[in-house]
């Protein structure tokens, strides 16, 4: 009975002493909660009243759902800061000798003392946080925007906030246990919260810098693991998933709960082992000094090396000389700084040379693994019998396809990976041959780029010249192994090889059906169709639902049955843009290029009242202005204008669309821009086009000589 009373009394005393923290948390949560809620609701309803952007009550409710649910970044940031404050103020007594003398001499068990600080810290957060969230709900209910879903989301948000408050709280307590000075404790908290993410990003950066065949891919599991490495990032990741319909991260949250509990156990264990005399020493456990230092300075020095090494490179590669210099200098600097923080004595820096040596061995050892590719990353080529299927992406052909954004993953995923994940070719020999060539060429990319750089340095590239880069192509390949693992690589191959591979794949109907995005569109969800013709004039097609369906099906059928030649025939006749209703709240836009060989689609568009020229009509070109960026340097680039019919016809015969609608079989020369002024039935418009590499008309070359 006496113990219980003592605990409650001690708790009350601590809360009285730290009442300023309760006041601060209350003010912050009140401002970020109910006050901002009221202000925003006022603004939202004003938009509804004024019907700005067709804003309705439904939109207000949707906004409010995010506010009380999982889309309130400010409030989440406040939770994180609150957790750190509660931990630091609760346990900073361990960093003061005078406080330790008092608190460890009184007849109260240290575990009880730990618990008092622990519980009071949680109460300082929980009371104002829950009250303010409930207040927000009440405000919303009063304004008529609350439904059962809002209550559910709000409850979930409180639960998630509490879970991650506890996780960050435990991490900060851990930092306070491991250190003996307040500033070092705060720095330690920052390191513990961010180290995982920093190391994960370092790994990616090292791969990008040293492995020629690496390209960044994203996976659900990878994203989840990376997010779990930092409590703050994990919090925002979990909130993002919970805020996305149908994406409940059950396993992630369970793992977060387990980690939170384990952290608490670790905190308690360290607390029991922590000597009182550790107060006012930088590290509470002297034996951890070396390990902590090495763990910090090794990744930090590798980062410094990467930054210095990539300073003057134009791609993700590193200059190895500067990299080594950067690693070395930062190892010495960081060792000095950390040892000074530990001991406040420069003489100690020289005495701790063994840990510096260990850090150097680790840093340079790690660098050597990447530089010499000791793991054989770039040489990776699985045996064919281990492969279930493969897919390939080339910018020229695949870059023109965009896929449904049906998940956050695909939103964050590069177009290469999205395509690779969409397709799995079982009869993959042609892709495997391409991969083999890529593995043989593993050092070729750097050589070609270096050659290109020196060619430009010796004689600046001129209009009409072809560079050696354009003879090669970057292809992205995915191996889907029988074990279930997916392996992604980027290869530098001969342009003809990649084209031959794609051509062979395009004779496979199953491949085309899994590749072409039009096969993923539900025609009944198509809201709007827009046509951009070859003159780059945009027209919203006025179609009935039946006409929309017919158009989609015709295009789909034609594309699935088209040969590679037909599909890559250039220049394209136009672009069909489709707006699709993904769900109740979101729409997506997809663009499909219409090849001049898609005769049925073109005929249907004509039938629906949209004229589409299969070739350029020189009569429509009023004038052409060409800008030559080869000669620009720091000056305004020179331009040339053409109005002669002969020149115009010659130029029109050589131009093509740019970007993903450019030619597939050849490279586009983006250093020469062709601006055509069209005059079609009195209506003027402009279109921007480009020439194919090495196929610039003579009249243009003459104009710039």
């Amino acid at each position, binding site marked *: 009975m006496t113990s219980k009373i003592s605990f409650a009394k001690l708790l009350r005393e601590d809360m009285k002493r730290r009442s300023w923290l309760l006041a601060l948390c209350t003010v912050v949560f009140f401002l970020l909660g109910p006050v901002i809620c009221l202000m925003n609701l006022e603004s939202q309803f004003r938009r509804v009243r004024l019907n700005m952007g067709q804003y309705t009550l439904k939109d207000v409710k949707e906004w409010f759902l995010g506010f009380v649910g999982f889309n309130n970044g400010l409030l989440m940031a406040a939770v994180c800061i609150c957790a750190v404050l509660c931990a630091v103020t609760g346990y900073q007594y361990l960093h003061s000798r*005078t406080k330790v003398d008092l608190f460890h001499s009184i*007849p109260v068990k240290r575990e009880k003392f730990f618990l008092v600080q622990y519980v009071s810290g949680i109460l300082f957060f929980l009371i104002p946080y829950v009250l303010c969230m409930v207040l927000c709900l009440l405000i919303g209910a009063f304004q008529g925007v609350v439904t059962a879903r809002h209550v559910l989301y709000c409850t979930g948000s409180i639960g998630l906030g509490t879970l991650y408050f506890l996780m960050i709280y435990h991490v900060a307590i851990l930092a306070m246990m491991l250190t003996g000075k307040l500033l070092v404790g705060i720095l330690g908290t920052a390191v513990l919260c961010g180290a995982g993410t920093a190391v994960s990003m370092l790994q990616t950066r090292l791969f990008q810098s040293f492995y020629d065949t690496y390209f960044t891919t994203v996976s659900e599991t990878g994203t989840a693991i990376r997010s779990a490495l930092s409590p703050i990032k994990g919090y925002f990741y979990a909130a993002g998933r919970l805020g996305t319909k149908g994406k409940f991260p059950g396993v992630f949250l369970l793992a977060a709960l387990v980690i939170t509990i384990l952290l608490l156990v670790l905190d308690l264990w360290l607390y029991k082992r922590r000597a*009182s005399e550790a107060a006012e020493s930088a590290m509470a456990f*002297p034996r951890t000094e070396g390990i902590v230092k090495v763990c910090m300075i090794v990744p930090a020095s590798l980062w410094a090396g990467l930054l210095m090494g990539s300073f003057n490179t134009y791609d993700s590669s590193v200059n190895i000389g500067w990299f080594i210099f950067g690693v070395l200098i930062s190892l010495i600097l960081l060792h000095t700084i950390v040892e000074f923080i530990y001991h406040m004595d420069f003489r100690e820096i020289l005495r701790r040379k063994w840990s510096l040596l260990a850090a150097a061995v680790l840093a340079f050892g790690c660098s050597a693994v990447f530089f010499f590719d000791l793991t054989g990353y770039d040489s990776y080529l699985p045996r064919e019998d281990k492969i279930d299927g493969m897919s390939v992406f080339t910018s020229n052909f695949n870059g023109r396809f965009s896929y449904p954004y049906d998940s956050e993953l695909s939103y964050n995923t590069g177009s290469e990976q999205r395509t690779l994940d969409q397709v799995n070719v079982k009869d993959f020999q042609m892709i495997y041959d391409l991969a083999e060539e890529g593995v043989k060429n593993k050092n070729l990319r750097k050589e070609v780029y270096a050659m290109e750089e020196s060619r430009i340095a010796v004689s600046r590239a001129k209009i009409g010249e072809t560079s050696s880069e354009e003879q090669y192509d970057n292809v992205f390949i995915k191996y889907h192994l029988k074990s279930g693992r997916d392996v992604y690589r980027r290869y530098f191959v001969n342009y003809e090889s990649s084209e031959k591979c794609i051509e062979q794949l395009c004779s496979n109907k199953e491949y085309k059906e899994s590749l072409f995005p039009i096969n993923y569109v539900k025609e009944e969800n198509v809201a709007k169709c827009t046509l951009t013709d070859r003159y780059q004039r945009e027209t919203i097609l006025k179609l009935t639902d039946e006409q929309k369906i017919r158009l989609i099906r015709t295009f789909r059928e034609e594309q699935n049955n088209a040969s590679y030649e037909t599909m890559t025939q250039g220049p394209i006749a136009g672009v069909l843009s489709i707006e699709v209703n993904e769900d109740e709240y979101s729409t997506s836009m997809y663009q499909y290029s219409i090849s001049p060989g898609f005769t049925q689609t073109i005929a249907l568009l004509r039938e629906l009242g949209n004229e589409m020229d299969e070739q350029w009509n020189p009569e429509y070109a009023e004038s052409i202005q060409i800008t030559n960026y080869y000669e620009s340097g720091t000056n305004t680039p020179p331009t040339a204008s053409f109005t002669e019919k002969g020149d115009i016809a010659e130029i029109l015969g050589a131009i093509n669309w740019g970007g993903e609608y450019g030619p597939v079989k050849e490279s586009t020369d983006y250093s020469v821009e062709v601006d055509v002024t069209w005059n079609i039935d009195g209506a003027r418009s402009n279109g921007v086009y480009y020439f194919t590499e090495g196929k610039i008309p003579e009249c243009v070359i003459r104009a710039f000589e």
Partner: protein
Amino acid sequence: MIRAEGIRKTFGCRKAINNITVTIQEGNIFGLVGTNGAGKSTFLRILSGVLKPEAGTVTIDELPVFENEKAKAKICFLSDTAYFFPGATPKTMAHYYGIVYPEFDKKRFDELLNKFGMEQDAKINTFSKGMKKQVSVLLGICTNTQYLFCDETFDGLDPVMRQAVKSIFASEILNRNFTPVIASHNLRELEDICDHVGLLHQGGILLSRDLEDMKFHIQKIQCVIQNPVLEEELLRELDVMQHEKRGSLLTIIARGTKEEIMERVESKYPVFGEVLPLSLEEIFISETEVAGYDIKNLIC
């Protein structure tokens, strides 16, 4: 009774306490004397359960101290630099002490505070160093614990306050079971209050003796013996700890009772002979010189 056996404590490479064994009896005022860095504060912190020794045991009334609420309830530790909560007043500190020490006498605290001329509601952070010490001592006394560990508590108090505190201690000892342990580097301070004194040096106890016993059995004599042979004889017959001759005046510090020593002196037909008062400092210096330590320079 406080019993410390074989206590060892190291901080990094430095041995702060090296194999201390000492017994502190109830009802005595124990003085722990030593130079700066001798290990007094460390030893008191170990006795209070703040620090855990690497070796040895510390028991208070047969109860081990470290992380033992029952044992700690019998002690109150007054650190050399006391901690007060930010913005605290004597009243709020008393309230806190009342929670952690159930026997805390709030009424007595108020009376003593009044006697010492301090206000209950004044902010402690506005007090001088001496006043803060006073508050600390009063809080310690009013906890009514059996043992009170004072780490250089008297240092920083003015002479009047020192006397006041000493008389409070004396009164406490008379009225209840109270055993203060006072650490100080000032022998003169401890001389008039302590019953038992222990000398700490470089982490070890050099000696631990009852003060009266020491004074009863060690005497300082000044005499003049004209006959050098008889003088030599006297020095041989007495258990001399230290002697010094200036001109014909011989000063001897020897073990033995006053009567025994004077009898010997008288037998040598001195021209002059008398017993002089001996300070604690002189006793210590003599004892430690016998032990082979020259600590004249160590004790202030």
